[in-house]
């Protein structure tokens, strides 16, 4: 066996190993630091938002109860009540869920189970594309088409309303829900269907009794993602909400959800006013947390 470079190899190995172990240790530290940056970011964000947002209540004597249940938001008069916005956010989100979730899920089922392959192959990527387009464009569409439509056909003085927000959010959720739910329905093994069909169940019965329950966790994820998109949406909503500060009592009322309140006023707010916008942010935060918990509960119940 030829023996070239053997000495070279051995000597090089021994001299360079120390450096390698050093680099090995160093790089692990660097990688760890990078992964800690997301923890640091989260702490910074939560810290800032909560520090700023709780300051008025702890240090300036504002009442948290009055903040949550107050009906008036007049920063110039030192009145900071966000109940109308909380109600608006809840109504808008629930309304969007009621419309968007069933339509989205049924569409996903259709694309995964019923649609001819050639059609699904065109539509699925198109829907996926729409899940990616900026949500502002949905708002532009809402303002240009939905708002005038409501104005003319419902005889409203102003088409910007709770129902307009609900429609825009529901439409906006659709592509997200369809894409995620479709993927999880497609992932259900063929054998499930065959088993059910072999027992004499109809194809449609099989879909609803076997396939959908099997895809449950993916479907829940789809709803959570769609919801996340709806609840956090700000700019599209500004365009169609009307932004009035009244407690909404009907679908045709103009509303101002929590998110839009922050975006509309952050530009010029300072002092307590600005802090109250952070407090609004905290409420939004909690709102999302609660909704996710509720959905997780529903999801785990449905599984039994």
């Amino acid at each position: 066996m030829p023996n070239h470079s053997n000495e070279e190899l051995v000597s090089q190995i021994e001299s360079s190993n120390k450096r390698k172990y050093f680099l090995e240790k160093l790089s692990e530290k660097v990688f760890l630091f990078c992964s800690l940056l997301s923890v640091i970011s989260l702490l910074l964000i939560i810290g800032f938002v909560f520090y700023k947002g709780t300051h008025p209540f702890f240090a300036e004597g504002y009442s948290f109860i009055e903040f949550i249940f107050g009906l008036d938001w007049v920063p110039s008069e030192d009145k900071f009540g966000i109940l109308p916005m909380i109600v608006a956010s809840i109504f808008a989100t629930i309304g969007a869920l009621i419309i968007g979730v069933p339509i989205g899920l049924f569409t996903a089922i259709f694309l995964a189970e019923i649609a001819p392959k050639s059609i699904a192959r065109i539509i699925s990527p198109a829907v996926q594309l729409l899940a990616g387009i900026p949500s502002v464009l949905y708002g532009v569409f809402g303002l240009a088409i939905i708002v005038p439509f409501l104005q003319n056909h419902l005889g409203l003085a102003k088409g910007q309303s709770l129902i307009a927000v609900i429609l825009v959010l529901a439409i906006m959720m659709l592509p997200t829900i369809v894409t995620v739910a479709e993927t999880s329905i497609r992932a259900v093994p063929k054998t499930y269907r065959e088993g059910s069909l072999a027992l004499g169940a109809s194809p449609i019965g099989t879909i609803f009794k076997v396939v959908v329950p099997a895809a449950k966790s993916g479907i829940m994820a789809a709803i959570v993602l769609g919801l996340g998109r709806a609840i956090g949406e700000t700019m599209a909503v500004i365009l169609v909400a009307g932004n009035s500060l009244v407690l909404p009592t009907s679908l045709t009322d103009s509303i101002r959800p929590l998110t839009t309140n922050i975006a509309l006023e952050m530009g010029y707010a300072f002092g307590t006013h600005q802090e109250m916008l952070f407090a609004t942010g905290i409420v939004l935060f909690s709102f999302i947390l609660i909704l996710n918990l509720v959905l997780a509960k529903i999801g785990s119940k449905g599984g039994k």
Partner: protein
Amino acid sequence: MRKAKDYFFQSLLWLSAIITIATLCIIVGFIFYKGIHLINLDFIFGDYSPSGGGGILPMIVTTIYTIVISLLIATPIGILAAVYLQEYAKQGRLIRIIRFATESLTGIPSIIYGLFGAVFFVTVLKMGMSIIAASLTLTIIVLPVIIRTTEEALKTVPLTYREGSLALGTTKLQTLYKVILPSAMPGILSGIILSIGRIVGESAAIFLTAGTVAAMPENIFSSARTLTVHSFLVTQEAGDIELAAAVGIVLIVIILILNLSATFISKKLNKADY
């Protein structure tokens, strides 16, 4: 009876699909119908003029700035963080905390990021409303996206590659950059493309941190508006739906190109793996 029920559900599925597809077609159709006549080279490469009729070059430049800066920061950090989580970390409390933080960041709505950026970067770090403040805010927004997709990509690299390399007397670091990262590259690239989409589509967080100045940014410390924010502002301030739709077309085309390249890359990935 069962027939009738089946028929009912079948119709429901068809109806839903038709509603979804029709709605989405109408939206895209509407945007193109309203905006297409404004699209030409002058529009895309022309400077903005406040009196109307100008182009959107400043917004395109601003959008590119935000993409480049935030990815320049988020990509290396995100990849290395994912590498730590997948390749180095032992299961334990620290890992659970890091995972929890990353997931939580994904769930925070962009308006909250905007609030944070507007105080932390704009005010505390004295960057002012600027491209850099917006880009740093966006960095945090896309960081979890890059971490997650990179982790997924790393998971697809077979354990046998790692063993094969380490058994040859290489270090983990060498194995990482010679074998693991190259194999995971297509997945990582799709994550980056996904992030670009997220940045391009973002509005609230940028609105609160970059401001609304409609002019060519002089540098990254200038206040400026991205395409998406522009589309919002011309609608809100001037009710100029046609202009907003024209900007919308540009945005849709960008997203389309991003999607196509992601598909292309994942196809390549499948081929390379055989």
